[in-house]
């Protein structure tokens, strides 16, 4: 603390000069400044503008706005049928993702932590990889996989003596397609998080259960599973938020139109269409706020449900 010793003799200087003459005092603020400045300009300020924009109607891209009160919100909540569609699709997709992916991820995590298995890192990497690929790539893979004429799924159906299925043409096939791709992309990712959580479980607990004669299954069910609660919390919070912002894969697979009867239509698709397809910036902003609050409510609810806190382990 050599700097403090230098600064001390000058007792009557103003606090501002005092502050800037001591490097250890002002550098921390300088170091965190880039984040807070860019956040203020590119996120906070737009959000403040959005409060106003939600009550306005944009006249094209002219930069002129007309005050219309709650009309945007009323339309979004009562008239706009695609809002309800988006909500239904989100709920279907989010629950479907969690119910298919989490149990499989847990079983996969158990398999990949099995002491009998060798080269564990390799297996983890293999199952984790799809989650780092671009959403566009996953969408293109989905498009190819479920293609009517030269897709993998139909080739499989034909190989087993079935008939070609028009996957993209039927409403009830749309969500299962998206869930398949999502399963592919995220299941291994969840498994890897669970494995990391498992390695954090105290060895004494596991050893005690072995001494007490617990079978591997009992150990998995009654010891490992409950202790993984924070990891499940993290996964389901991020997965729910991810489902709410689902955009890339459905956009690529269903060509911005959302597929037959909008079964692939999500909130972000709707916001984009309203703002940049129909140039209704005010209305799209209002929808943005509704989705914003849905996301916050879901996050808070899950934090409560799992009694989860972020970054709590250190002081």
């Amino acid at each position, binding site marked *: 603390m050599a700097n403090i010793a230098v600064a001390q003799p000058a007792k009557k200087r103003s606090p501002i000069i005092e502050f800037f003459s001591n490097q250890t005092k002002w550098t921390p603020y300088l170091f965190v400044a880039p984040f807070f400045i860019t956040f203020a300009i590119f*996120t906070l300020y737009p959000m403040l503008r959005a409060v106003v924009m939600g009550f306005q109607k944009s006249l094209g891209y002219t930069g002129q706005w007309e005050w219309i009160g709650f009309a945007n919100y009323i339309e979004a909540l009562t008239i706009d049928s695609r809002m309800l569609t988006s909500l239904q699709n989100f709920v279907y997709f989010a629950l479907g993702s969690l119910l298919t992916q989490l149990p499989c991820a847990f079983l996969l995590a158990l398999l990949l932590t099995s002491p*009998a298995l060798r080269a564990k890192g390799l*297996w983890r990497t*293999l199952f984790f990889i799809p989650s780092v690929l671009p959403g566009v790539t996953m969408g*293109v893979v989905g498009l190819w996989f479920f293609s009517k004429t030269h897709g993998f799924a139909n080739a499989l159906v034909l190989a087993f003596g079935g008939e070609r299925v028009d996957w993209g043409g039927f409403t009830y096939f749309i969500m299962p397609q998206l869930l398949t791709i999502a399963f592919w992309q995220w299941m291994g990712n969840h498994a890897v998080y669970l494995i990391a959580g498992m390695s954090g479980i105290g060895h004494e607990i596991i050893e005690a259960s*072995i001494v007490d004669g617990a079978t591997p299954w009992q150990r998995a069910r009654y010891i490992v599973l409950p202790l993984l609660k924070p990891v499940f919390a993290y996964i389901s919070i991020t997965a729910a938020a991810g489902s709410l912002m689902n955009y890339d894969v459905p956009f690529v697979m269903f060509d911005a139109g959302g597929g037959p009867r909008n079964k692939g239509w999500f909130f972000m698709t709707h916001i984009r269409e309203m703002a940049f397809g129909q140039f209704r910036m005010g209305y799209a902003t209002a929808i943005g706020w509704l989705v914003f609050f849905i996301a916050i409510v879901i996050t808070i609810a899950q934090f409560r449900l799992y009694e989860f806190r972020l970054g709590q382990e250190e002081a």
Partner: protein
Amino acid sequence: MATPGVSRDITSSYRLGVRSKIGLFRLRAILATTLALILALIFVWPFFCIVGSTFNRIDAITNPLIPIPAEFSTQFYQLMFGEKYQMQKYVLNSVLISVTTTVLSALAATLSGYALAKLRFPGRDFLFSIIIGIMLLPTTTMLVPQFVVMKELGLVNNYWGLILPGVGGGAFGIFLMRQFMLNIPTEMLEAARMDGANEFSLFFRIVLPNAAAGIGVIATLSLRGNWNALLWPQILISDVDKRLLMPAITMLNQLQVADAYALPVVRTAAILAALVPLGLYAYSQRYFISTLAGAIKG
């Protein structure tokens, strides 16, 4: 059996329990490996097949279940980088944006993470809780007002509009970096201060070299995020020549009805585009999983 207090990993203590039954253990090993192998094959087989399909000729009669192309050809790759589709232009644009944003944001996140973990200053805990709060905010929903502000700033159709919002490091990057910095011994920093190092040389000479693994992780995340991004570059950039790779692929995808070559070229481009995050992840995976998991444990 293991004595209490002696730290053993789960594997060794488990093995002790079944040591008398080595035959059973072998059987388990074979079973577990076979099961993992079958699952992995189901998982990656379609990927092999789609990669194989990019090496076909357009008129080849193919079987999608077999990854080996019926008639090997690099036709789609040549087309992709040829006169008509010019994907190399979009690849370069994407590289430029991703690398610039990543370098700036990794530096900012490291600076912030270091300050929040290792420096004492009034308001530090408050600023950190704000960052946690921001991390949980669904800011993606604000893309319309963000676009309007960008338009007023003259940053629409301008690469700065893609770069600047990311250069602060991002709340998640800062959060990860702070968790990482907590492991750097404070005594080391104090010793350097005693030796008369100022705060900047301290950061660049001591902190930065010791944070290489953490920087690798957040740089990977940032590069991947920027490279994979679709929605924001899609709405912000409308100039054909300035377009990034992901929006360019989706644009071509929408032409598939009018152009028989569009779909296979899209497929080829999408597979090639995946190589970037794949390579990145393969390079940094050792730090990746442990750092990410360390941040959520607790």
